[in-house]
């Protein structure tokens, strides 16, 4: 079966390279090894979202039973999104689980992920903290997601206020990522974030 998986990936790879999305730089696919079992994907943050301007790297692992089982995909770029774990990058998307169909391709997966970034589903969250903020404080969510895009995905929008708060914590010896996670979790309230880190 591994033979089919490799054959499929080979063809899908060609397909993606030739596709118009690649021409528009919306998605990208790269081979990691020679036997087509691991790939690197890249998605551009969709326009009019906090992820705009960012470039998100994905790890794609192709199981031996592909395409009868879905590929294993996760985000390598840190992202602030209700359906994607801010810790591990694990994705909660139905087509990567029980709604997978053998006729789907890596291209459809990448495009679905792009659609997920544009329209989150907070009622079916992967990251409960992010989902809660998304629902209760959308403004705060947007600026946090934009900040993460800026820091981790090369997005253009800097947030001096956030950077300053992180600086305050890193001055105390906290790793900048830990500081960012704590501040993002506590809606950028420095006091509560500090408390959470030091207790």
């Amino acid at each position, binding site marked *: 079966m591994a033979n*089919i998986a490799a*054959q*499929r990936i080979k063809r899908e790879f060609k397909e993606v390279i030739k596709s118009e999305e690649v021409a528009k730089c919306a998605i990208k696919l790269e081979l990691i090894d020679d036997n087509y079992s691991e790939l690197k994907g890249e998605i551009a943050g969709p326009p009019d979202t906090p992820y705009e301007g960012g470039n998100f790297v994905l790890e794609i692992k192709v199981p031996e039973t592909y395409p*009868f089982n879905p590929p294993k995909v996760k985000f390598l770029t840190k992202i602030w999104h209700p359906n994607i774990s801010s810790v591990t990058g694990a994705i909660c998307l139905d087509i990567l689980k029980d709604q997978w*169909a*053998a*006729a*789907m391709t890596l291209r*459809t997966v990448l495009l679905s992920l792009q659609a997920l970034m544009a329209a989150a589903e907070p009622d079916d969250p992967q990251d409960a903290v992010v989902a809660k903020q998304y629902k209760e404080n959308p403004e705060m969510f947007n600026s946090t997601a934009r900040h993460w895009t800026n820091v981790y995905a090369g997005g253009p929008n800097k947030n001096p206020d956030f950077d300053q708060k992180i600086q305050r914590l890193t001055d105390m010896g906290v790793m900048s990522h830990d500081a960012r996670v704590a501040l993002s979790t506590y809606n950028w309230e420095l006091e509560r974030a500090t408390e959470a880190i030091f*207790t």
Partner: protein
Amino acid sequence: MDFVSTGGGSLVDNIFLLFNAYDWWVYYSKKEEKNLAKKEREEKMYDQAFEEILFSLDETPIYADSGGDQHNDGRDTNEFGADFETLQGLECLNMEQAKNLLNEHVDQLSSKLHISPSLAKLFLHLNEWNVSAIVTAYSKHTNAFLVDNRVKLAATAALGASAIPSAAACTDILPLSPSSSTSKSSTNASSPISCPVCTHPLPGDHFRSLTCGHSFCQYCWARHFEVQINQGITLDISCMASQCNILVPEALILTLLRPSLHEKYEAFAFRDFVSTHPSLRFCPGPNCSVVMRARESKPKRATCNACGTSFCFQCGIEYHAPTDCVVIKKWLTKCADDSETANYISAHTKDCPKCHICIEKNGGCNHMQCYHCKHEFCWMCLGDWKQHGSEYYECSRYKENPNIGRESAHAQAREALKKYLHYYERWENHAKSLKLESALVDKIKSRIHSKVMTSSGTWIDWQYLIEASTLLAKCRYTLQYTYPYAYYMQSSVSHYYTVISHIIPTGTWIDWQYLIEASTLLAKCRYTLQYTYPYAYYMQSSVSHYYTVISHIIQQYTYPYAYYMESSVSHSRKELFEYQQAQLEAEIENLSWKVERAETTDRGDLENQMDIAEKRRITLLKDFHLSSFSNPTKLDIPPQGGTTVPISTKDSSTASIQSEGEGVRSASMAPLSS
């Protein structure tokens, strides 16, 4: 029950106790809807009876001359006891018999609808094996039925009857067509087509498609089936196209699947078939392959002939009367989730006296600071630490106000936990006792054995002791299961809804609608009653206290009634109020009782009770609520603050005697204050 009193009085006593407890048990199991207080009382008596039996079983002096004729009654009643609890008409089938039974259904349906057995299996599986329902639905709305059962795409069905000319034709179309017509027409049969899954170019006759028309090569289909079956999926295997949920019928799977996997597929499919068949149930015993068949699925005890496992037929878990299937599941989940955590919380934590967050003491010092609100307090007395000062340690002081903050959410959670633990401990205790008592049976057996060996009576003579311990186990079992039942007994309307939904099968929803009305009314009355208490509270308060609260009442509630009451010093009126309040209380109790026993209460009786309760409520409202509006001029409300001395009404008693109709209506429209 007659007893031949031969030797030792204690023996007769034992048997009496035995039957006593037994009667309790029968009574217990039969009456399903009970009120909590009564239940607890009974549980207590029941517990006592157990203790006594247990004690006497342990201590029974074995007399050489005790006759064997004493226990015939006992055996009779035991048999009677088994009757109403055990599911009747139960059959134990082996795998072969169960398969034959399922095949009978399949044959029946396939011959009736002229469809392939493979398709018939799919229909039966998706429709609880109800042949007549399938036939009706199929002949009425064939297309809709096929779409609902994921055999045809909604869009294809919409094309109309031309797609399926007749039921007979379905046989050919539905299971599978080798290669879809579209792929054939577009390409030459000889020239290869590329499969969308494996990308291999293959001749057209290697392709298969379902009714949805999605065409894939037969090797990919086979691999797809293999992957799905290895994941335990059999009847829910669907088309490989994205967003297509058309199911693959068994015939296609078995044609394309490699033979070594056929056995696995059939085993999994059989498991799925039994699980959807309403009158079949796998015996839950370990390594037991027996399939139990009952005429009807009821929450009664079913016992497997092969391995002796006893379970509730309806839900497949341990037999659990008087608690019902839904409740016991809830309870067991709760116990699994909560028991350890709950025990720990109750043993090791207290609530912060200020913010009521749950606090665990992690050091030896009694000077606590709440992590949440930074409040400093004493762990022992929960008092403010400031009062503990540095002079001396005085937290052996009596807690002045242990009920502080009782209404807060955390205090309520704590209360709920207490309630849960109360029941859980008793439940757990009985479970433990049951285990211990199974050892007792062995002990008794060995005792009997030694007695028989030393020629003091025959084995039959001592049989009654075994019976007693069996009965004890049975009674304790039922008693154990009364605790989850009691835990979930509530007095809210939602409870009545669940009660009603349980008895629904014996009538239509409309037939039982009056029960909902009754419970809604009950809630309404209770609500009013609840609000008579603040009323009464302020009524009884002293004049001096009254001055301090008056501004509050007037500003916030604009409810000057208590004010008026107090100032009028009309004791007769107060008495009238208390009397009416008590009346309402009593009638609500009656109604509540009757609603909870809705199954046994006569409908007329219940409606009568509803009427009485509502009348009491209206009377009370009329006399003490509406009348205050009808005499607005007599209620002098101080312009601001609470400084003015209230002016009393002249004759408050006349105000209470309000007539219905006009008077009331005008009263409600009258302005509140002058």
